[in-house]
């Protein structure tokens, strides 16, 4: 491909980069026990919640940033220069969605996410998180009819304290890693979901994260519990304004599936990736983990990662229940100067547990893409099986793709298969498309979408369309 093409590739526009003017309730930058007390007080939290946070903070102080093993390079982050709380000012508690600040409502409309329930065409309930707080949760009543709880995290702490205390940190403990510890100390909002036994959640649940304030980190926490025999499909989307500075996003997601329960968790991550020279962009350090606690339970992660300057995340499954199933489907696209170190961990503990890993990495311009995956079969995991397939696609010759598979098999009856391929986007394929009248730009997006198909078809319909569009936009400018 021509140099010009590659340059344009690197310059694709970010459509979601606008900011919203709202009055903010904001904390000065800096982190200390006092800051954590203030956050906890702002959320009127019970004392056990504050103690839990402080415990996280103390662990964080003991931990080092995981610089050494991830294939990422970035300037050290100054944790005292970050604001740990920013919220749009609201005079009083919202009684209904109609009272929402019209500026914020407009923001979400621009992003294509209408928050008025009557306007929602698709069968999707939305929790919208704006900087540090949840501003709107739709379809609450409808869901409560089925006994389903879908609440902003801070509300869950008040309304479902038993469940929160029981499961918070049960999959990702405070001291799990540096970023998880930081999140435990300062997490602001996020979503909480509880599906009662035997209930099949009648609609997709969705959280939309939006960073707006400058110098602000976003630290949300999501906890989903699927009780026995229940099913839920959960979607997560993210965008942020274009800024020259790097903003930190350090989230934690915990999933718990009890006997025969299924959780399908889908992410389309499109945080601001920075500009063509590598200035700005979100640092996305996220810990996502699910526990298949019950027999025959199933957790399925699907992610399409096109944004962020840096992505560091490994959505994982702990397959504890016998016959439980873990899946990881991933598309990671790095263009411009983006770096992604992403993959999964499948920990097989129960008997006859199975896991599937399908990872598709696409690197263009100066993008660096690493797949890092661990499959561990514990001693007792008789008859466990894993299948992994990691494919990388390179566009141009200044980008990179790396694959780091780790295997730890402690049970001789286990079956583990791993396949990996790396290919350059074929000149022959491009020419074939062009010979049929298709422009080079459209050809690239066509070939990339074909490459990702196995993963995209795991996404719920509307999300798949969105993801395809995003892949195209992220590679935009491929005109020869």
């Amino acid at each position, binding site marked *: 491909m021509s140099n010009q093409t590659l340059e344009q590739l690197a310059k694709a526009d970010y459509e979601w980069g606008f900011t919203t003017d709202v009055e903010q309730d904001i904390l000065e930058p800096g982190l200390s026990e006092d800051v954590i007390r203030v956050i906890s007080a702002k959320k009127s939290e019970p004392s056990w919640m504050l103690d839990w946070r402080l415990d996280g903070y103390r662990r964080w102080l003991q931990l080092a940033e995981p610089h050494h093993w991830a294939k990422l390079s970035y300037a050290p982050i100054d944790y005292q220069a970050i604001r740990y709380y920013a919220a749009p000012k609201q005079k009083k508690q919202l009684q209904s969605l109609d009272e929402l600040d019209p500026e914020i409502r407009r923001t979400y409309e621009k992003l294509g996410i209408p928050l008025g329930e009557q306007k929602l065409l698709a069968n999707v309930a939305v929790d919208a998180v704006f900087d540090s707080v949840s501003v709107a949760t739709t379809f609450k009543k409808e869901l409560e009819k089925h006994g389903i709880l879908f609440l902003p995290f801070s509300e869950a702490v008040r309304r479902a304290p038993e469940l929160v205390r029981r499961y918070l940190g049960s999959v990702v403990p405070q001291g799990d890693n540096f970023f998880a510890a930081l999140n435990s100390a300062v997490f602001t909002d996020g979503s909480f979901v509880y599906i009662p036994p035997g209930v099949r959640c009648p609609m997709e649940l969705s959280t939309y994260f939006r960073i707006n304030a400058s110098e602000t980190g976003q630290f949300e926490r999501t906890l989903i519990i699927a009780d026995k025999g229940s099913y839920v499909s959960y979607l997560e989307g993210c965008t942020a304004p274009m800024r020259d500075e790097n903003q930190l996003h350090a989230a934690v997601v915990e999933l718990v599936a009890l006997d025969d329960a299924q959780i399908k968790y889908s992410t389309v991550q499109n945080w601001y990736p920075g500009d063509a020279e590598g200035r700005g962009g979100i640092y996305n350090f996220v810990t996502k983990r699910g526990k298949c606690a019950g027999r025959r339970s199933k957790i399925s992660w699907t992610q399409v990662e096109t944004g962020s300057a840096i992505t560091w995340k490994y959505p994982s499954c702990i397959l504890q229940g016998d016959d439980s199933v873990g899946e990881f489907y991933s598309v990671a696209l790095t263009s411009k100067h983006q770096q992604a170190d992403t993959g999964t961990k499948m920990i097989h503990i129960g008997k006859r547990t199975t896991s599937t890993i399908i990872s598709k990495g696409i690197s263009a311009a100066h993008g660096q893409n690493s797949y890092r995956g661990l499959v561990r079969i514990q001693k007792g995991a008789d008859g466990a099986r894993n299948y992994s397939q990691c494919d990388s696609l390179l566009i141009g010759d200044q980008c990179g793709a790396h694959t780091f598979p780790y295997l730890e098999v402690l049970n001789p009856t286990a079956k583990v298969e791993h396949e990996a391929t790396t290919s350059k986007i*074929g*000149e*022959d*394929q491009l*020419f*074939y*498309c*062009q*010979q*049929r*009248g*298709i*422009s*080079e730009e*459209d050809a690239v997006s*066509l*070939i990339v*979408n*074909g*490459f*990702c*198909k*196995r993963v995209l078809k795991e996404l719920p319909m509307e999300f798949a369309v969105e993801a395809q569009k995003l892949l195209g936009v992220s590679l935009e400018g491929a005109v*020869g």
Partner: protein
Amino acid sequence: MTTPMLEIRDLHVRIDASGTGGTDGEAILRGIDLVLPAGEVHAIMGPNGSGKSTLAHVLAGKPGYEVTKGEVLFEGRDLLSIAPEGRARAGVFLAFQYPVEIPGVGNMYFLKQAVNAVRSHRGLEELDAMEFLSLAREKMKLVEMPEELAKRGVNEGFSGGEKKRNEILQMALLDPKLCLLDETDSGLDIDALRVIAGGVNALRGPARSMLLITHYQRLLDYIVPDHVHVLAGGRIVKSGGKELARELEDKGYGWLQAMRAPAG
């Protein structure tokens, strides 16, 4: 005199290895002259490695070749200065000797993209899914393409013969003016050859010209050419009527290569 569909004048081509860091190769085409009037079908024959595919590729605009001398006119316009997709939209179609696979991209979706890219270039309205489907069904009948193949990825797991059938299907859908068919007959069984030749013949018309690259007389029994050219060592060493193909079948290429003019 009317403008020919294609006019090639003293075309010299070599491998351009600048992009790959290698050294440029020797000349492959060494002075091709050819006039293809509108409505005519010309066959190009010649030994392996003589440059037949190279000629087709250069006409279609495939990267990796350098034209060191000569020119090519398509309907009187300079063809070589147009980008590959521009040539396709203007009506140049290449049925590949080795069609590539594009995994995961639905064949129908691909064809629809292609048809609409070409249509919008020609100032025609784009076809919607239903309109496209009925057009595609009609053309699929022409080449007896099973529906099942249309549902797969582009050429994904197609047999050799199925790929060739898919090429002719695309040709029928894109309605080109100049068709370059590179060994479309190789790898086809007898029945498939008849079907494909029927498809190609149905597309013959006063406004369409074809360049048929083949090794076998058999194809020319079905698609009868107006002229036959023999390409050897990067040059057209002999041209004649359809009977030339039969002569080649009997005698091989040796006698022609022997009488090749010395390089000058």
